């Protein structure tokens, strides 16, 4: 995690606080909404102030997630059009009938404007495999032209609303590690099925219980 990554988090916190300033609390707000707003402001202010305690707490939460590294890349206009990039550790995807696949590592691209505007369509998840640019499906629920966010959209939208970067990156882990076989979007390989390199989800390997245990023990 670089100083640039931390500075970009602080930038996002300031931008969110500007929203709170520009849309002041109304006495007509329900008390729950007032509390939610106050909790969000209390979370954001120390990040905007770049207080070490708040930053260390956030960095600790990020380190606990299944990511190898976090980076930030500035754009032409600095932080405003830059993006965060997280690289996951190898992940296991589990279906709701408990079948499991080794899906390897992914990069998660989170543009600053995507966070500030809660634009989920700007977020990209890409497997770390050769020829990624020619793939159509990167995951059973994420292709080059469509993403089935399911309930994850709510968690992600809420996390973006308050700049909770640990929740943002954590939600992607939940998304990538979940598979609902009823999805019409794309199908991962079945056990024993081998797909040609360069085809959709060819890198995914369905696991039996023994293989799952050995992978979990190795980590």
């Amino acid at each position, binding site marked *: *995690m*670089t*100083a640039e990554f*931390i*500075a970009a988090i*602080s930038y996002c916190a*300031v931008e969110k*606080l500007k929203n*709170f*300033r520009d849309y002041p*609390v109304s006495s007509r707000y329900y*008390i*729950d909404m*007032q*509390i*939610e*707003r*106050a*909790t969000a*402001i*209390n*979370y*954001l*202010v120390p990040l*905007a*102030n*770049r207080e*070490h305690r708040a*930053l*260390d707490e956030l960095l600790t*939460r990020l*380190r*606990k*997630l*299944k990511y190898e590294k976090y980076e930030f890349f500035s754009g032409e206009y600095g932080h405003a059009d830059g993006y965060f990039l997280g690289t996951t550790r190898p992940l296991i995807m589990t279906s*709701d009938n408990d079948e499991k696949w080794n899906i390897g590592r992914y990069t998660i691209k989170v543009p600053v404007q995507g966070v500030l505007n809660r634009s989920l369509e700007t977020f990209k998840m890409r497997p770390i495999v050769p020829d990624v640019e020619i793939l159509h499906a990167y995951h059973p629920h994420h292709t080059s032209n469509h993403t*089935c*966010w*399911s*309930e994850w959209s*709510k*968690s992600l*939208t*809420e*996390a973006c609303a*308050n700049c*909770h970067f*640990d*929740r943002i*990156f*954590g*939600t992607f*882990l*939940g998304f990538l*590690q979940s598979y*609902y076989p*009823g*999805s*019409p*979007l794309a199908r991962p390989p079945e056990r024993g099925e081998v797909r040609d390199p360069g085809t959709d989800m060819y890198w995914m390997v369905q696991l039996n219980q023994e293989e799952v245990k050995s992978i979990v023990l190795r980590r």
Partner: protein
Amino acid sequence: MSDQSDANNITEVPGNFWDELSREASLTLEEQGLASNQVITLSTPTGQMATIPVEGAVSIRNLIANAGLTMSPSAQFVVDGTFVGIDHEVAPGGHVSVSVPLKAG
């Protein structure tokens, strides 16, 4: 690990427009008898966030019951990016994301 040194290299930012927001927020929470280290937040599948006062670490099951919330039996819980069971204990200041899986998506 360079995170600590990175954080230390960043200079303090002088007081700014958010100071007033911060005072307003602190007053709101104080009036409700809440402090950020005495609550657990819970984001619901409908996109709302519940702020629940607690006195110490509490299981998600008890957190839901104490807050008077109802939850689908198929609800999944994520804490710190990891799926956890309903009896997982969460410390004050923590956050629980609740997701209810759909059969297609």
